């Protein structure tokens, strides 16, 4: 007889792990099914020689200190996932060599505004207004997360009049409305690549919570790479009575009487009251669910969306210390253009793509690699099919050429020569990410998230979006909060709570 569970989670990525853990801690019988042999999806690590690399995360937001915890630390504490989070030293460092821009920004709202004033004298007043707008918008966002589409219009109008004017605007439109000077806008746009879209299209409401999260709570990394978070969740799910089946593929979702009834895996059939998909709706509705059960609106919704970008990442284990190599920063954003819409377009091809984000883990985590060594990761966005036109026999050469381009961009902009110090070299492309994360096109951010499908829109319609197929819900980057570690963790938690409620109510 088929094994029976309350909740089956498809995919042990960030969203899936938190969903599984939340449900298991609430006394539900949980099975998490994962194709890979490790938990976490992007939240992982890999060992090369004497280095253990962080594959994905640059920094996590909303962690905060023990005394003043952010939303993420509080949630992890509540789930019993104890991490000695390490604070990242600075917010960001922007380098646009062609324009002579080289600006380093700190955490802390006050400090941030002061530093902006230092680089761009006269900007403080407008920055104060901008931050005030962000704070108000963030409060409104918090209110809406609680009530979703059952908001009180009069309450919104009374308390959040400025938010209501900017709620559906792009980042650039808000910069313009506030009247921020051009050079301040360039600085403020630095995080655009963390949002997956350039500031001319991306919603201000995706940017604002992220910026404010970083400025007020700082940014953190787990000391033993993000695999630490994943492995702790894996362990705790099992200790709470749940199961995780690795190397296991979900082939079909079973429907009975118009409701999800389980899944078929390559290990056999499994019964479930609720299924939480920590994977792409394209896969769920295109391959897992029998077409006769797929609501037409799900097809239209998926067709209306576009995949966000993937990335290539060059991992370098260097046989010299940061000091010896002259490396100073944790994160540096190198851009070819001040116009990030142009930079975004340049991700469609491999050649002359110099939009590199570098991280040096040793600048945050002491002893991240042995004495006298350090680790660098260079991340470069990749859009659409920019990595699929390659013959297998050319793949390594193409990869290495691309890596060299990124390394030279880094060397050129920082003056730090690192090529001769490469003791370990590894590179991930979208192909690699599709191998380990199984996402369509190796994408890491789910669907582009803006406008009608932005974070507000997804948040307001979360219930209808997770109820078109009764018993089937979505967590992770494709879900209502979109991409990023924190967002995936939060969506896993919220979606699991919806499943718990549904099971309690016997729906």
């Amino acid at each position, binding site marked *: 007889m088929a094994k029976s569970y309350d909740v089956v989670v498809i995919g042990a990525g960030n969203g899936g792990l938190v969903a599984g853990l939340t449900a298991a801690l609430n006394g539900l019988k949980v099975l998490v099914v994962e194709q890979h042999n*490790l938990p976490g999806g992007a939240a992982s690590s890999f060992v090369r020689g004497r280095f253990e690399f962080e594959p994905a995360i640059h920094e996590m937001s909303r962690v905060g200190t023990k005394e003043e915890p952010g939303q993420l630390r509080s949630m992890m504490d509540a789930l019993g996932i104890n991490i000695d989070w390490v604070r990242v030293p600075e917010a960001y460092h922007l380098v646009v060599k062609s324009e002579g821009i080289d600006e380093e920004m700190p955490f802390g709202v006050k400090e941030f505004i002061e530093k902006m004033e230092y680089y761009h004298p006269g900007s403080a007043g407008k920055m104060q207004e901008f931050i005030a707008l962000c704070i108000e918008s963030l409060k409104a966002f918090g209110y809406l997360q609680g009530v979703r589409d059952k908001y009180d219009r009069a309450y919104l109008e009374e308390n959040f009049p400025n938010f209501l004017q900017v709620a*559906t605007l792009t980042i650039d439109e808000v910069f313009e409305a506030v009247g921020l000077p051009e050079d301040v806008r360039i600085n403020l746009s630095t995080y655009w690549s963390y949002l997956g879209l350039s500031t001319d299209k991306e919603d201000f409401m995706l940017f604002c919570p992220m910026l404010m999260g970083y400025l007020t709570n700082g940014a953190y990394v787990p000391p033993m*790479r993000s695999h630490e978070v994943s492995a702790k969740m894996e362990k705790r799910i099992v200790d709470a009575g749940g199961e995780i089946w690795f190397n296991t593929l979900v082939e079909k979702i079973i429907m009975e009487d118009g409701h999800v009834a389980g899944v078929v895996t390559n290990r056999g059939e499994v019964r479930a009251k609720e299924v939480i998909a920590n994977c792409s709706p394209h896969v769920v509705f295109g391959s897992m669910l029998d077409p006769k059960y797929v609501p037409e609106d799900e097809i*239209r919704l998926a067709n209306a969306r576009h995949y966000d970008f993937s990335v290539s990442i060059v991992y370098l284990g260097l*046989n010299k210390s940061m000091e010896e190599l002259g490396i100073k920063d944790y994160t540096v954003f190198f851009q070819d253009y001040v116009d990030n819409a142009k930079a975004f377009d340049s991700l469609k091809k491999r050649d002359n793509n110099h939009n590199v984000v570098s991280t040096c883990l040793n600048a945050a985590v002491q002893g991240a690699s042995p004495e006298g060594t350090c680790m660098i990761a260079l991340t470069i966005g990749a859009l659409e099919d920019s990595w699929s036109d390659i013959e*297998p*026999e050319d*793949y390594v050469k193409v990869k290495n050429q691309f890596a060299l381009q990124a390394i030279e961009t880094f060397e050129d902009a920082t003056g730090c020569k690192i090529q001769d110090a490469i003791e370990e070299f590894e590179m991930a492309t979208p192909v690699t990410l599709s191998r380990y994360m199984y996402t369509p096109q*190796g994408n890491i951010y789910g669907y582009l998230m803006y406008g009608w499908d932005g974070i507000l829109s997804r948040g307001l319609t979360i219930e209808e979006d997770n109820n078109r197929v009764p018993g089937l819900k979505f967590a992770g980057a494709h879900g209502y909060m979109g991409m990023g570690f924190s967002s995936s963790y939060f969506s896993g938690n919220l979606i699991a709570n919806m499943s718990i409620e549904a099971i309690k109510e016997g729906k």
Partner: protein
Amino acid sequence: MAEKLQLKGLGQKEVDAFFNLINTRHEKIAEAPATPLQTKFPVNELMRKLHPISQALEVCEIIEHTPDVKTYVFKRTDGEPAYFRAGQYLSLVIPVANVTVTRPYSICSTPSETKNGIYKITVKRVDDGFISPFILDNWTVGTQITSSGPLGRFYYEPMRDAKTVIGVAGGSGITPFLSLAGAIRDGVEDANLILLYGSRTESDILFRDEFKAIEQACPKVKVVHVLSDSTSGDPTDGIEHGFITAELIQKYAPTDEPYSVFLCGPQQMYNFVDGELQKLGIIRKYIRHELFGEIKNPQNIPGYPEDHANQTYRMTVRNLGETTQVDCNANESILVALERAGIATPAHCRSGECGFCRSRLVTGDVFIPSDIEGRRLADIALGFIHPCCSYPLSDLEIIAPPR
């Protein structure tokens, strides 16, 4: 009430856009086509060509070098053989007697030969071995087995390695170098290879003719046979005597530029040659070892606690929600105990590195040789193990993944 900010050019239109957002969303969904969803993705298709989860192989030819050394030529029956990097291995799933085990074998054919649809591996008899005698005595043309995609990292990496590679090979450790030499000849890899190949006598040398042909066709490859138990031949025939010492390496290595040293052979050879490399002051970045597979008799390794050898322990195995009890012998890895019990466990490198067999040790103690510790920091802290290099020291409970 919040203070009203001066927001240029904004007004009720923007406010209305927010209150209309859900309708806008519904409209956009309704406008989109209901055409079937894309289910094939070019990046994922390329990934599966490069990294198939498994490959169905069939022996199509057997080349007998000696009765104890044979090369098996495989064709893939469920697609094109995946392209690989010279030096990589295939993890073969081998049914033998009543159990199924995996073994990593270096591919000794060249990457270009995948275009002809083939892989080659060479198997040398290990007298007290379990698998090599089975293969040599049982595999025939037509034998079908399953393998992994190409795996491993014992390959030339121009981003990291010097232009010249000194290959140090011992015994059947020669196989990945045959692939590398061929790849250099084919122009697939751009490096110089100086191969110091240790054998006991001339009759123990494998692929002598193959290497000679490559040397003749390609000036970037030079092969020196280093004979430990013979006095025949001299350097003009490409023959040296004794061991692969610092002196010998220096004799053949470039003097004016750095060089990388790649080692593949038995543990004793690594122990000796590593000492010689230290004398030469070669830095870590320029030294690469191929993995040498599972360790037998862990009690011989420094650090092994007393009084555990030869003990038999009871192991509780949780796998896919089922619980099984099996015996495990202190002298054998937990992976071997699982295989003996017929529990299909994923494993590739069997040397602690690839992590494919990663399992959770719920209770009990194990011995893990410190020099093959390939685990992640968090896994060490949380009690996850690689069964291929973990040896039981007590009764155990583990959660093992399915293959």
